[in-house]
């Protein structure tokens, strides 16, 4: 496997980047307001709804979306599908930022943030708490992700000795990088068990950890597909349709398993009747299932899943469906009792948007300035000899549109 990664290059400070910067600035203003005046000054959080979009989106959904590195690592390192190896770094980048910014969101969300380190102090730890396990696991995994991404940074710094040392112990880090998300993505679901009847019966179940884990892995694959297509559209990268279609082939099977478990659980615990009661919950459930069903149908079809548009729509359906599952369980189908209401406040939303904007800006920075994405064929050819920089612009999506001809990079198996 002789892969060459290189920075995509190109200007970082595009209009898109500036727009994201504006969103970040607005988010920063509300974050400062939150720290000076308190959580209530920027959010609609209340005693009945102590967790809003910061937890539900930034932490729970955001980390599930960031499971690309984890999902790809399962394929490459457990099932030995080396052909997907070149995609790991890009997936890792999304994961690193997803988890790091989930951590940042936690600091914004918790009320006594100056004592947040208490979770690491053994004399405070409550080993019965699901939250403790999530906190420790996510922190450790974020560190693991940075270590796994570090080769890209080290390469950009040409720190070859460090690279060599790291590569020899990376298998331990990678092992942790497979264990830890298994633990905490399932536990993010287990968080809801103690909430009892506050979570609607269609979402509350003993197997919630398994359901959260399955959807997280599936969303990881969907994000890898989505991110690759995004890079192709926005960064003039060649389409990796062949590889993507193979990756996305896993998704429908995971979803079928998930749906079987979900419906099976509803039947076995006599909750299937809730699908036919009044209220918005049956519709929310139906929307979730329809989105996932769409992805299943499209991605089972070998001819459909080689088409970039199908991949895009199916990946989006999985991401939205999986996110909706989490939003429903934590927020929308959550009823603490009469008189409590929640809709995110403007400040709350702008903080989340600012954090996401930062995530995208960081992604663009890393992708353009450090060797994360696979080098284009001309660069790889130049590794053994002369380089033709002018060709870098010729390949890519626009080139394809002009009919200049391109094919996905030939990769060693």
């Amino acid at each position, binding site marked *: 496997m002789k892969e060459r990664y290189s920075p995509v290059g190109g200007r970082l400070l595009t209009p898109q980047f500036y727009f994201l910067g504006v969103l970040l600035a607005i988010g920063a203003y509300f974050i400062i307001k939150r720290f000076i005046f308190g959580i209530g000054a920027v959010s*609609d*959080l*209340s*005693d*009945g*709804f102590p967790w809003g979009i910061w937890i539900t989106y930034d932490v729970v959904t955001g980390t599930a979306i960031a499971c690309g590195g984890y999902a790809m690592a399962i394929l490459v390192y457990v099932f030995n599908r080396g052909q997907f190896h070149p995609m790991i770094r890009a997936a890792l980048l999304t994961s690193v930022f997803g988890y790091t910014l989930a951590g940042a969101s936690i600091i914004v969300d918790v009320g006594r943030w100056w004592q947040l380190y208490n979770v690491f102090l053994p004399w405070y730890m409550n080993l019965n708490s699901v939250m403790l396990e999530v906190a420790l696991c996510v922190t450790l995994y974020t560190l693991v992700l940075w270590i796994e991404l570090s080769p890209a940074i080290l390469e950009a710094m040409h720190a070859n000795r460090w690279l060599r040392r790291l590569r020899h112990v990376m298998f331990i880090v990678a092992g942790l990088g497979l264990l830890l998300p298994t633990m905490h993505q399932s536990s993010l679901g287990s968080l809801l068990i103690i909430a009892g009847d506050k979570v609607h019966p269609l979402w509350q179940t003993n197997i919630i950890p398994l359901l959260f884990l399955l959807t997280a892995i599936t969303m990881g694959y969907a994000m890898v597909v989505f991110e690759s*297509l*995004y890079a*192709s*559209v926005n960064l003039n990268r060649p*389409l990796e*349709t062949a590889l993507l279609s193979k990756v996305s082939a896993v998704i429908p099977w995971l979803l079928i398993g998930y749906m079987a478990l979900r419906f099976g659980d509803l039947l076995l615990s006599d909750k299937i009747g809730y699908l036919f009661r009044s209220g918005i919950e049956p519709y929310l459930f139906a929307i979730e299932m329809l989105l996932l069903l769409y992805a299943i149908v499209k991605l089972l079809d070998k001819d459909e899943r080689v*088409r*970039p*548009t199908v991949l*895009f*729509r199916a990946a*989006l359906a999985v991401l939205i469906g999986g996110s909706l599952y989490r939003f429903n369980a934590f927020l929308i189908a959550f009823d603490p*009792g*009469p*008189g*409590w*209401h*929640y*809709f*995110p*406040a*403007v400040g709350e*939303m*702008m903080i989340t*948007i600012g954090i996401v904007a930062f995530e995208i800006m960081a992604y663009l920075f890393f992708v353009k300035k450090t060797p994360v994405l696979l080098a284009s064929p001309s660069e790889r050819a130049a590794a053994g000899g002369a380089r033709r920089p002018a060709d870098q612009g010729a390949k890519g*999506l626009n080139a*394809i*549109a002009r*009919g200049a*001809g*391109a*094919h996905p990079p030939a990769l060693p198996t």
Partner: protein
Amino acid sequence: MKTTGEWLNEEIGPRVSDQLEMRGIDRRSFIKLAAAITAAMGLPVGMAGRVMAAIEEESARPAVIWLHFQECTGCTESLLRATHPTLETLILDMVSLDYSETLLAAAGHQAEAALHDSMQANDGRFILVVEGSVPTADHGNFCKIGGQTPQQMLRKIAPHAAAAIAIGSCASWGGVQSAAPNPTGAVGLAEALQLEGITKADGTALPVISLPGCPASPYNFLQTVLYYLTMKQLPELDVKGRPMFAYGRLIHENCERRPHFDAGRFAEEFGDEGHRKGWCLYKLGCKGPETFANCPAIEFGDVGGNTWPVGIGHPCFGCSEQGVGFHKALHEQADVETVTPPSMFPGVATEHGGGATLAAAAVAGAVAGGAAVYALGAHEKLKHAEGTGSAESSRKE
């Protein structure tokens, strides 16, 4: 414990019946009087015997020197109209009023001599009662009795007293004379003693009991004196030197109109429906919520029920409270010192906010819309690429 009757017969002796007969008061009425006074001081009924014994013993009749400074003599006038006990009971049986400019029959040098003799005979044992404020501006020259300023008189007299009672708001904290701009620099007795550095002859502080009010309720004064005679000690005082039994609660806490306050029934104007129905006078400026006194309990004038300001329909103006009376405007709303729940109740399921606002919905809509537009745009680009790309790949194959 002996009964009251046994105590009278065995401990006090025949002097009691003599005294009673001379005044035409039969024993039964006297016992009832003692019981009433005991109850008014907030003491248990069983102590009536001790109260009566205190009244009886001649040696327990302390000398009282009553000084008048900047005052209207309203407190003395109120005392004159007391009925239980009457003033003559006070000055003939309970205390020996050796000097009082209002009540003394003598005048001029004779009066001065009475003051001097009493001080000498009762050195360290008499009670100094002060009515009226002490002017501190211009060395006290705003008030002179017999050519002497209050400061000079206090310097001469106070060190020889056992205790002092400041009767009325003027003597307690300055009263009406201290209303802005307080041109005479009027202060109460306790502050005057402190400013002048006047202590007892042996250097210890002279205890001062303040009985504010304009006028002070005469019964608060009588009860204080009786407490001292009976218990041989001062009653429990608050931080401002006021007896707790009279000034320990806010008027607001004793007011008969309190249920109207709690239920939100307020008179808005004099003579309106609420006013005529006897509703709470808070909105008309009643200072009950920040004034400590027992007016609602003992009222004034002994003419029946409701004879106190709020009872007859006028808001309390806080005459006994420094910083309130003669300081705040009559119809200025009071600060409620102890905030307690209203008589309303919340329902079992309280509505809380947090729902969608227009702004939030707009932002959410904008985000969703923007994301949708972006996704559609990306989709279009992919479609375009797909169209040409599939042509390419089919050519390649």
